[in-house]
């Protein structure tokens, strides 16, 4: 994708910043490692998949998930409190007529605890600038060709809420267990760049 590799440059900048903070006596390596370990511990798209599977089998859970996601996800043992402050979670449901897709145009806001670390394309300027303007074209580049009549809603995570898509349950999955259903859900399905 990119001709240069920005990751090492960013890592070096972050390390310089950490060293300045440590030198100023504001933190130390152990504290920083602890924060990052706690933040990433268990961060995985399997968490988002479990939430989706529960919503597919439990209408009451689904209704609460769409109105108060932070309290609903406690049912499956999850929370949005892994960071420095609890983040608000908004879950948006795909329907027969509406497809949702998530972006952060200003930086890279993302529900890491529920989806794991974000893919590099999610942080790319190309995705961030283009998906709000031409979501149908961008989704087609991901291999997702939506019918013309489908309404697309792009959610820009520009403030303190993090967004997750609730995909539609695939046809022909009656009688599957919650675990079997969770195994069908991909990270891209939770961002909205793929169907499930």
């Amino acid at each position, binding site marked *: 994708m990119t001709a240069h590799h920005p990751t090492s440059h960013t890592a070096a900048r972050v390390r310089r910043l950490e060293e300045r903070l440590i030198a100023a006596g504001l933190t130390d390596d152990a504290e920083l490692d602890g924060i990052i370990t706690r933040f990433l511990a268990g961060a995985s798209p399997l968490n988002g998949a479990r939430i989706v599977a529960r919503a597919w089998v439990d209408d009451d859970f689904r209704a609460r998930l769409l109105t108060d996601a932070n309290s609903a996800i406690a049912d499956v043992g999850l929370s949005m409190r892994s960071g420095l402050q609890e983040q*608000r979670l*908004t879950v948006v449901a795909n329907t027969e007529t509406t497809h949702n897709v998530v972006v952060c145009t200003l930086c890279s806001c993302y529900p890491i605890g529920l989806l794991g670390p974000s893919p590099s394309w999610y942080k790319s300027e190309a995705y961030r600038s283009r998906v*709000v*303007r*031409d979501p149908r074209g961008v989704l087609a580049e991901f291999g997702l060709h939506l019918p013309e009549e489908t309404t*697309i809603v792009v959610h*820009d995570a*520009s*403030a*303190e809420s993090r967004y997750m898509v609730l995909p539609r349950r695939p046809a022909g999955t009656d009688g599957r267990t919650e675990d079997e259903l969770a195994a069908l859900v991909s990270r891209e399905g939770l961002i909205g760049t793929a169907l499930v």
Partner: protein
Amino acid sequence: MTMADPATRFAAGDRVRALSVDPSHHTRLPRYVRGQVGEVLDVQGVWPLADDRAQGRPDPRSEPVYTVRFAAHDLWGEGSHWVTVALWQSYLEPVGTQERPEEQ
């Protein structure tokens, strides 16, 4: 900019305009919605104002944050999709008949 009103100024269904501003400091009012009119869908609760936090103000103001839905055609002159953006209250002004004089 006026002092932030901690009371919730807008409700779902209200039409609001994102301010057409270009501050010298960090803001989380995306440029592509500045000056544009959208509809409030939801109130996301009260959160510290990102602009104040970024400037290191010791006591950042807190304001309601709204989910505001914009039509692609208004933003880009084309397209049939919608874009929702989360915006702090002081980024928004009322539009037309939705103005509520009793709260001014």
